[in-house]
């Protein structure tokens, strides 16, 4: 019964989403206020229906209702309850449901916040989001219904993929999807701008917080994904340039570019059509990611069960949404290009233009590498996967200049900055960065390798300049700095921390594979690892051999590590859980290989300097986004909302 309620709620959600799309569009076309007014209640109703469907599927998982085919395929009575619930998004159908649930959530947020927006803008935004919902609901109902029953119901489910039985998976997909779907809001604002013909400072002020929010979630999602890969894939690596990782990274790159170009559009009233294009692109890449993961055109460790009809549907949907938007763009964006004005190279907008170019080219490079197997195949060269050598070669030269730019970001003024001002403010941070950047690798991992030093200098540069800006601005101020300034500085410092992390972890980690019998020890970079033995443990849905390791430094015990090898009862798959001693300057990582003769095991030991900094940097950047979101400016618009929308003329004349 409950699954049927869920199915029915999905159908009702489809009806409401259709209303949410068609009536407001008609209202805009005919200037009918009554039709415009439908958008917000329809969005709220759609959210309620999606919520019911989501809870229904959750209940089916909780109650082990194996007559639901999706539950039977992805759950098991032995699975702990929290993994049974996170199994909702463990495979294709349920993750689509999560996608739509979050989209409905964002629509709800827009509907509730829309009282401060002009009615036609709010309704148009909701209509566009409704259209996206309609597409996904049709897709779900026709090709991927999670509530499909199977009879006779199996006695036991097939279990959740063991790779996904990790606390990281409980939060990683929701965060990632919040980010993906969040760009739907920026996308809807962009389409609204094209329809209504208004890209003014009011438009950017509304679009910015939504974009920042989506970006923040995506940052957290990508960072968690990397962390999860490190822990669960057992390689000690943190990024694999896998097609699915790339699928989440491309919208992030373009979304980052969008945040920066929105700032220019708001402050200077330029780059308008470019900003609109970026908003469309960020969402298009989110959709493309959905296509790549689910269509089976590329092979990936993450790919969902593939089905060509799904691929065709998503591709068609992608063509309609993105093709339609870009057609609209081609027809209507010319109006945003009133008068060219030169952008000074030494100005904040000039810097942000450069930032945008690097980010977009980097995203294009990742896209090319990701699609290369298909491209090569279509040119008759066979399916070549390019792999990390390509990505590292293309990506690092494109992103290193970005970090250089970060340092100048705070110092540059809009319109024009004198070179001597730059020099007078940047020489001290530069010297500090060079000293710190040379000292850091030398005293921690003991290297003067050019790549590590260059990376650390860049990273320190981003951090030091961010601090310099905050310190200089707060000097002599009694009130708090604006939150968006603080947020920017923190996000930039996060990038610096991240850069230091990757510079020191790549190439300086020690690793080796050894055969260890109980009682034997091995030594690596000053740490002595003693293998005490293994013991057998029965988990809730697996049996495990848990190794017991003692790590000593200078004869003093500093950690006990328990790497394990699990064998899951339902599917019989083996999984490696690494034992990791976490530290600020290094991780010690022990993972069990295969049992060898006697009680000996093959054991892999890694020393990963500064690996935590990679994720710390990601989370700190996301925190910067959060702080920027709480800026007073975005809340103040409540008071001005009822005033007519300011025209753009004021801005353009001021800058002419």
């Amino acid at each position, binding site marked *: 019964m409950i699954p049927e309620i869920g199915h029915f709620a999905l159908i009702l959600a489809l009806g409401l989403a259709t209303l949410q799309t068609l009536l407001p569009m008609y209202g805009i076309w005919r200037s009918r206020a009554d039709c415009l007014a439908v958008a917000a209640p329809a969005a709220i109703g759609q959210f309620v229906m999606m919520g019911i469907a989501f809870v229904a599927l959750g209940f089916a998982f909780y109650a082990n209702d194996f007559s639901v085919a999706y539950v039977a395929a992805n759950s098991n009575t032995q699975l702990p309850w929290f993994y049974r619930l996170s199994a909702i998004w463990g495979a294709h159908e349920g993750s689509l449901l999560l996608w739509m649930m979050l989209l409905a959530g964002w629509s709800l947020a827009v509907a509730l916040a829309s009282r401060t927006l002009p009615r036609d803008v709010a309704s148009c935004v909701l209509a566009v989001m409704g259209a996206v919902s309609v597409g996904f609901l049709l897709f779900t109902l026709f090709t991927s219904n999670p509530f499909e029953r199977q009879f006779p119901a199996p006695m036991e489910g097939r279990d959740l993929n063991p790779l996904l039985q990790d606390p990281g998976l409980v939060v990683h997909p929701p965060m990632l999807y919040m980010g993906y779907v969040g760009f739907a809001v920026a996308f809807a604002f962009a389409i609204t701008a094209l329809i209504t013909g208004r890209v003014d400072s009011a438009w950017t002020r509304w679009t910015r917080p939504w974009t920042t929010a989506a970006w923040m979630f995506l940052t957290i999602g990508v960072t968690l994904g990397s962390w999860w890969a490190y822990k669960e894939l057992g390689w000690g690596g943190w990024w694999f340039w896998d097609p699915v990782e790339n699928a989440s990274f491309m919208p992030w790159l373009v979304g980052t570019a969008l945040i920066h170009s929105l700032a220019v559009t708001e402050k200077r009233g330029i780059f308008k059509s470019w900003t609109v294009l970026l908003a469309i692109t960020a969402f298009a890449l989110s959709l493309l990611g959905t296509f790549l993961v689910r269509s089976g055109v590329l092979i990936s460790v993450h790919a969902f069960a593939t089905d060509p009809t799904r691929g065709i549907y998503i591709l068609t949907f992608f063509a309609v949404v993105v093709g339609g938007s870009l057609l609209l763009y*081609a027809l209507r964006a010319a109006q945003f290009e009133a008068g060219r004005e030169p952008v000074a190279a030494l100005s904040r907008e000039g810097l942000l233009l450069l930032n945008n170019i690097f980010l977009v080219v980097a995203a294009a490079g990742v896209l090319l590498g990701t*699609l290369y197997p298909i491209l090569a195949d279509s040119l008759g060269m066979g399916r070549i996967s390019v792999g990390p050598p390509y990505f590292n070669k293309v990506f690092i030269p494109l992103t290193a200049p970005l970090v250089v730019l970060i340092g100048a970001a705070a110092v540059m003024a809009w319109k024009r900055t004198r070179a001597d001002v730059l020099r007078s403010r940047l020489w001290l941070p530069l010297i500090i960065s060079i000293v710190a950047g040379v000292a850091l690798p030398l005293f921690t991992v003991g290297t003067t390798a050019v790549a590590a030093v260059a990376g650390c200098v860049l990273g320190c540069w981003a951090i030091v300049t961010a601090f310099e800006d905050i310190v200089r601005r707060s000097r002599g101020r009694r009130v708090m700095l604006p939150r968006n300034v603080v947020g920017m500085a923190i996000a930039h410092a996060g990038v610096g921390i991240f850069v230091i992390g990757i510079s020191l972890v790549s190439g300086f980690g020690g690793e080796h*594979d050894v055969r260890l019998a109980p009682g034997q020890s091995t030594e690596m970079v000053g740490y002595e690892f003693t293998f005490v033995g293994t013991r057998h443990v029965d988990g809730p849905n697996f049996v495990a051999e848990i190794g017991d390791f003692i790590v000593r430094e200078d004869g003093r015990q500093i950690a006990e590590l328990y790497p394990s090898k699990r064998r899951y009862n339902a599917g019989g798959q083996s999984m490696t859980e690494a034992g990791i001693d976490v530290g600020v300057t290094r991780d010690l990582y022990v993972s069990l290989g295969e049992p060898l003769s006697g009680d000996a095991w093959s054991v892999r030991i890694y020393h990963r300097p500064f690996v935590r900094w990679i994720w710390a940097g990601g989370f700190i950047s996301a925190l910067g986004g959060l702080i920027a979101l709480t800026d007073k400016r975005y809340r103040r618009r409540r008071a001005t909302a009822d005033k007519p929308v300011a025209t753009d003329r004021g801005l353009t004349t001021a800058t002419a």
Partner: protein
Amino acid sequence: MRWRLVLPILIVFALIVLLGYGLTRRPDILPSAFIDKPAPAFDLPTLASDQERITVDDLKGRVTLVNVWASWCVACRAEHELITAVSRRTGVPVVGLNYKDTEANAKRWLGRYGNPFAVVAFDPTGATGIDWGVSAVPETFVVDAEGIIRYKVVGPITREEMNASLIPKLEQLKAKGS
């Protein structure tokens, strides 16, 4: 209409055509200039030790499967299980050709996923791969007892392909040889 504004839609159109094409393709068997030709000569160290070497002559005497793989190749992870299955079912030994990889990464990969290979030739520069006409990783060659390449799969093998063509081909060659 300015061309700059039309450019995005043209790019996306090209992308959609490309992806549509990608959908129609499964990693397929491509005809190869190498089929029915002797396997190109090579002389490489094995992954297990620097002293031992493996040459093209080691392929002769029985039917072998040569699988080109690399630890950085995601598709290789996907077909790994099937390579193991083919070898187990037919009893044909699999010679790995580790392509443009590092020794540490390759060993780690084998340690993690299991080693389906009778022996792995280590080709860090990719020179042998070029001689063998490797355009994509993974690639799988069927070499008969005379050292002639009889069949080739570009890209990861799929379960259907394994059952429908690869295993029958191996059985047929084995029967002919004995």
